[in-house]
């Protein structure tokens, strides 16, 4: 009774941790009586609980005794199965933690991975570990109950993919980023080549070091008196060089993005093929895909899906930290 009264007097702090491959994001929400009174986000270049991250979380915890730490499950051994009762048909429940969602389907994850996660964060403690599938189902709740579609949650290196038919789960898989095989790489190169031919040529034809040095030397020879040197020319030349460097960097990033998108496309394609061919699942032909994009994908992935798999693609931006916080709040309030 007393604790309930005290609970209403204090604000609640929700600390949400999203761990990526290269960085982790800690999103803080301070809630008072169902209202978010403040929120902030801090990014750390680590995928473990570093000292900086620990210090930041501790500072968040000190804001209120009623704090809740939520994290998104990154276990490789997680997934979802289309039943709540007959889970043993699909998974070994003795080594997995399961949660029945909507009395229709079940999310599961490895007990050992949960233990490892809790051990890793034991210095700050964990209150919630959410499955990306439950977040995905909540995010696309309006679409899941009314269509036969693929629903995917795209993270930096992982994809949570599931197929729903009017609220009924048909298939689900948690995918990790693959290393390209040479065959795939070649396929990808041919696709990329056509789009970026001109840019590639321009890029190959410029040697930044040579250009810089030659131009400077010529200028020096032409102008005997150093005092006559025009500063404008140097500046112009310097700015040209800078532009070229920037273009080169952009191109590298662009190529990486395309690699990444193609990789994701392959993962989705493999998974869907598995869905169509595995007898365990009631496969049906799917014509549309809804993508919850947490990383900001380029239009290439959409293009691959549309052109290669003939899918209608709908991309919707998702703030994973915010969704995680909403889930945690829904559990508490």
């Amino acid at each position, binding site marked *: 009774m007393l*604790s309930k009264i*005290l*609970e209403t*007097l*204090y604000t609640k702090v929700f600390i949400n941790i999203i761990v990526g491959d290269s960085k982790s994001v800690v999103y803080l929400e301070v809630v008072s009586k169902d209202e978010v009174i403040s929120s902030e986000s801090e990014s750390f270049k680590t995928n473990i609980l570093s000292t900086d991250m620990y210090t930041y979380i501790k500072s968040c915890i000190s804001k209120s*005794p*009623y*704090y*809740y730490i*939520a994290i998104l*499950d990154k276990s490789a051994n997680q997934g979802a199965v289309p039943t709540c009762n007959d889970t043993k048909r699909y998974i070994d429940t003795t080594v997995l*933690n399961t*949660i029945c*969602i*909507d009395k229709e389907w079940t*999310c599961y*994850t490895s007990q050992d991975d*949960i233990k490892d996660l*809790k051990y890793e964060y034991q210095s700050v*403690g*964990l*209150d*919630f*570990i*959410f*499955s990306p599938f*439950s977040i995905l189902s*909540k995010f696309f709740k309006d679409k899941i109950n009314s269509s036969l579609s693929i629903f995917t949650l795209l993270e930096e290196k992982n994809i949570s993919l599931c197929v729903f038919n009017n609220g009924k789960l048909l298939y689900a898989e948690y995918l990790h980023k693959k290393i390209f095989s040479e065959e795939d790489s070649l396929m990808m190169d041919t696709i990329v080549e056509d789009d970026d031919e001109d840019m590639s040529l321009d890029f190959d034809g410029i040697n930044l070091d040579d250009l810089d040095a030659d131009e400077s030397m010529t200028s020096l020879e032409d102008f005997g008196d150093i005092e006559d040197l025009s500063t404008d020319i140097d500046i112009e030349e310097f700015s040209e060089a800078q532009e070229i460097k920037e273009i080169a960097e952009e191109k590298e990033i662009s190529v990486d993005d395309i690699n990444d998108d193609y990789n994701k496309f392959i993962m989705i394609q493999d998974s869907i093929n598995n869905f169509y061919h595995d007898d365990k699942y009631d496969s049906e032909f799917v014509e549309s895909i809804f993508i919850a994009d947490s990383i900001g994908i380029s239009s290439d992935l959409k293009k691959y899906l549309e052109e290669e798999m003939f899918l209608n693609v709908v991309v919707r931006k998702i703030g994973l930290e915010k969704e995680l916080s909403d*889930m*945690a709040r*829904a*559990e*508490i309030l």
Partner: protein
Amino acid sequence: MRYSYIKPRKKTALSKDMQLLFTFFGVTLSMLFLTYMFLLFRDYRFDQNRAEVLQEERDLRVSIETMKDKITSIENQNILSQRVFTKNIVLKDSIHNLFDLVPGRITLSQAQIMENGLVLYGVTPNKDIYNFMLQAPLRSIFHRTYSSFYPLDNGWFRFVSTNYIDEESNDEY
């Protein structure tokens, strides 16, 4: 609906020390409260007992008054009985004296003893015997004495002697 694989840890605004402190104060306060309640209860019971005792006292007083009345009544009855007893003794003595007064030659046929008087009926051989042997002592006792004679066939006289004691003398008695 639950979505998390784990349950949230129990949160509290109170640290261990504060919990201990609150427990201590809680126990102390509860003991004080219980003592206060006990005293209240005892006070209530005391008031109740006092009211009962007062009621009992009132009842006893009423009872005493009733008993006093009864005692007075009994005393009065006792006085009355003693008076009656005394009267009876006096009456007995009077009758005894009366019969002592009557000489052997006079025969009484009826005697009426009243509050203030005595009426004697009887037979006397002659008036003189009556006058000397009976009327004389009667006169000494009663204030007023009246005698009437009726002659009988055998020469004797039937007499009626009416004797009275005056009121004043009676009161003294």
